[in-house]
C-alpha cells in the first residue's frame, strides 16, 4: 500500500511540474528551459518564508506570486519578442536559466540549504504509515489542478485561452487581447513551478542547481500527454510516475529511470501526438 502512495506522490509532483510546463508550451508554443529555475526560486521562497517570515505555509502563497511577477517581467522583456520562433526561445530560455542559476549562486552561495518539514511525523492511512506532509501536498496539488481544469472548461477566461490556442490570429481579430493572454499564461505556468518548488523544498535540499532533474521527466510527460491538453497530461503523469515507481519497486531505481524513457519512446512512436490525439 505504501507503494501505491509512493506512486501517487511521485505522479502528482510530476504532474504539478509538468502542468506549468505544458500550459506554457500548449498555449504559447514556448519551451521554457528555465522552468526548473522557477522551481528552484520557489524552493528558495520556502526557505525565506520559513527563516524570515516565520511560517513555511506563507511560502505557498508568496513563492508562486513572486515567481509569477518575475515571469511576467521576463515575458514582456524577453519571451514576447520570440513567439513563433521555437528554436530561438529554447536558446533564450536556456540562457535565462543560466542567468537565474548564477544570480542565485551569487546572492545565496552554492551551499546546500534546508527547509524543515512543516508537518513532521506520519499518519496511519490505508494500513501503512505515510508522512503527513506528503498527504497534504497530494491533496493540495489535486485541488489546484482540479480548479485549473474547471477554470479552463467553465469560465470565460478558459474559453479565451482555448480560442487563443486554436487560432491566435482569429482570436486577436475577434478582439481578444492575445498579448495579455500570453503574459498571464506564462506567469501562471511559472507560478505553478514556483509552487512545486515550495512544496518539494522540505523533503529535498535547496541549492542553485536543483532545478533541471525535475524538469527532464516533466518534459517527457508533456510530450507523452500531448500538447495543450490538461487531461492528457494527467494521464501521462500518472502513467509515467506509476511505471517509474513500480519498476523501481520490483527491481531497482535505475531500471525505473530506463523504463520511463523506453515508455516515452514507445508512446511517441505509435502516438506521435501523445495520449490525447486532439489538443483541447
Amino acid at each position: 500500500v505504501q507503494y501505491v502512495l509512493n506512486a501517487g506522490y511521485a505522479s502528482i509532483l510530476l504532474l504539478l511540474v509538468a502542468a506549468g510546463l505544458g500550459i506554457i508550451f500548449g498555449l504559447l508554443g514556448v519551451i521554457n528551459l528555465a522552468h526548473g529555475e522557477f522551481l528552484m526560486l520557489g524552493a528558495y521562497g520556502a526557505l525565506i518564508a520559513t527563516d524570515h517570515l516565520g511560517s513555511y505555509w506563507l511560502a505557498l502563497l508568496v513563492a508562486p506570486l513572486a515567481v509569477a511577477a518575475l515571469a511576467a517581467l521576463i515575458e514582456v522583456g524577453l519571451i514576447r519578442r520570440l513567439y513563433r520562433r521555437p528554436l530561438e526561445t529554447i536558446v533564450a530560455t536556456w540562457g535565462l536559466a543560466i542567468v537565474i542559476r548564477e544570480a542565485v549562486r551569487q546572492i545565496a552561495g552554492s551551499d546546500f540549504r534546508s527547509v524543515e518539514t512543516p508537518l513532521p511525523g506520519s499518519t496511519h492511512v490505508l494500513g501503512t504509515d505515510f508522512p503527513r506532509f506528503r498527504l497534504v501536498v497530494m491533496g493540495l496539488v489535486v485541488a489546484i489542478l482540479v480548479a485549473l481544469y474547471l477554470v479552463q472548461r467553465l469560465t470565460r477566461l478558459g474559453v479565451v485561452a482555448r480560442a487563443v490556442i486554436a487560432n491566435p490570429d482569429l482570436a486577436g481579430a475577434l478582439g481578444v487581447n492575445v498579448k495579455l493572454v500570453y503574459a498571464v499564461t506564462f506567469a501562471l505556468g511559472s507560478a505553478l513551478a514556483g509552487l512545486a518548488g515550495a512544496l518539494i523544498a522540505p523533503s529535498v535540499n535547496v541549492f542553485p542547481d536543483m532545478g533541471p532533474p525535475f524538469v527532464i521527466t516533466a518534459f517527457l510527460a508533456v510530450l507523452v500527454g500531448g500538447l495543450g491538453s490538461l487531461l492528457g497530461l494527467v494521464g501521462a503523469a500518472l502513467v509515467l510516475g506509476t511505471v517509474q515507481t513500480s519498476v523501481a519497486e520490483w527491481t531497482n531505481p535505475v531500471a525505473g529511470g530506463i523504463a520511463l524513457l523506453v515508455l516515452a519512446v514507445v508512446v511517441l512512436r505509435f502516438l506521435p501526438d501523445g495520449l490525447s490525439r486532439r489538443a483541447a
Partner: protein
Amino acid sequence: MGQRRRRREAAVVALGVAAAAAASVGGISAGGAAEGDLKVGVLIQLSGAAGVFGPPSQQAADLAVSEINAKGGVLGRKLELVVADDATDVKTAGEQAQRLMLQDKVDVLVSTESSAARDAVLPIVKRAKGLMIYTPLYEGGACDPHLFNLGEVPQQQVAPVIPYIQRTYRGKKWFIVGDDYVWPRSLGKATKSIVQKSRGSVVGEQYVPLGTSEFGTIIGKIKASGATNILMTLVGSDAIAFAKQINDFGLGGKVRLFGLAMLDNVLPAVGKGTKGIVAAYGYFGTLQTPANSAFKRALRAKFGSKTAQQTTLSEGTYDAIHLWAQAVAKAGSADPDKVAAAMGGQTFKAPKGKITVDARTHHVAQHIYFGVARPNGSYRIVKDFGLIPAGAQCSF
C-alpha cells in the same frame, strides 16, 4: 498540424538541450606567473551539482601555498597556485586537466574530484609525464607510478567501523543505498565482504541515478527488510534528500545511518532531523586537536567571515600541497619522476593528525575518527580508531 509538428521537433531539441544544461562549462584563468615559480594546479568542483565542495578546497590550497611561500618557498622558488573548476562534469575535468598540464604546465596536479573525473584526468597527466595527487576518500585500487592517493579507502573508512557500529548499536542487518556510479558500487562490494566477516548480514542493496530526490520507494524497502543500519553512499544533495525523507517516514533515530559522504558541510542541510546519522573520516571539522585548531585559526585569519567549513575532502587538498613541497625539497628538483620517488615515506603533521605516505602502495596511513551527528548539524567525535594503514592497494 504543421505548426504542431514543428513545436514537437523543437520540444525534442529542448529535451536534449536540457540534458546538456546539467553540464555547463566553467574555468578560471591563471594569473601571471613569475619566471621560475613552481606551479601547483588544483582541479576542484566549484560549480555544478557538487559546487559546494570546491570553495573549502580552494581556501585550503590557498593557505598551504601561502604558508610555504611565507617560509621562502621550495628550493628558493615561490609556489604559484592555479585553480581550475571541473563544473562537476567528467568531460570538463578532462579539458581543464589538459589546460593545466599543457598550457599552464603545472608541476603537480592536485585533484579533489569524483572518481569518474580522476579516471578522466589521470591519462592526461600521464601523457604529459606529470605528477598527480588525488585527495578524496574513494574506492581504492587506483594505481599508477605518477599517482598518489591521500583519501580514505574502504579498508580505513569502512572495515573498522562496521564491527564497531554493530557492537555499539546492537544491530547487524545492513541495507546499502548509493548513487549509481563507480564509487558507490565498489564500496557496496567492499562493504558486503566486510559485513560478512563481521558476522552481520546485508539485507538489501539499491542504487539510484545521480540527482535522485525521491526515496519513498527505497525507504519502503528498507522498512520491509528490517535493516538496523544503512550504509549510505549517496552524495551531495541526494544524501540530504534521503536523510530528510528517512525522518519523514519515521525511521529517524530508529536506524543507524552511516553516511560515507555525509561531510561536515553537507550535514547542516539535513536540518534538525540528524538523529541516527553517524560518519567516519580521517578528518572532521570538529576535530579538537592543537593541529586542527591552528589550521582553522589560520583559515579564519586569511578568509575572515568568508571561511568555508572544512571537510575531509578539502583538508586533503591542503595536505597534498604540503606533502608535495616536502618531496620536492627532498628530491632537490621538481622533476615528476624524482618527486614521485621522494614522496614515499614522507610524513606530514596534518590538521587530521600524522600521515605517512607508503612508498609501496602510494596511499597513506591515517587516523580514522567516528562522529555522531548533533542536531546543530555538526559531528561530535566519539572515537579514534587509531592509525590505520590503507592495505595492499597497489604494489610498486
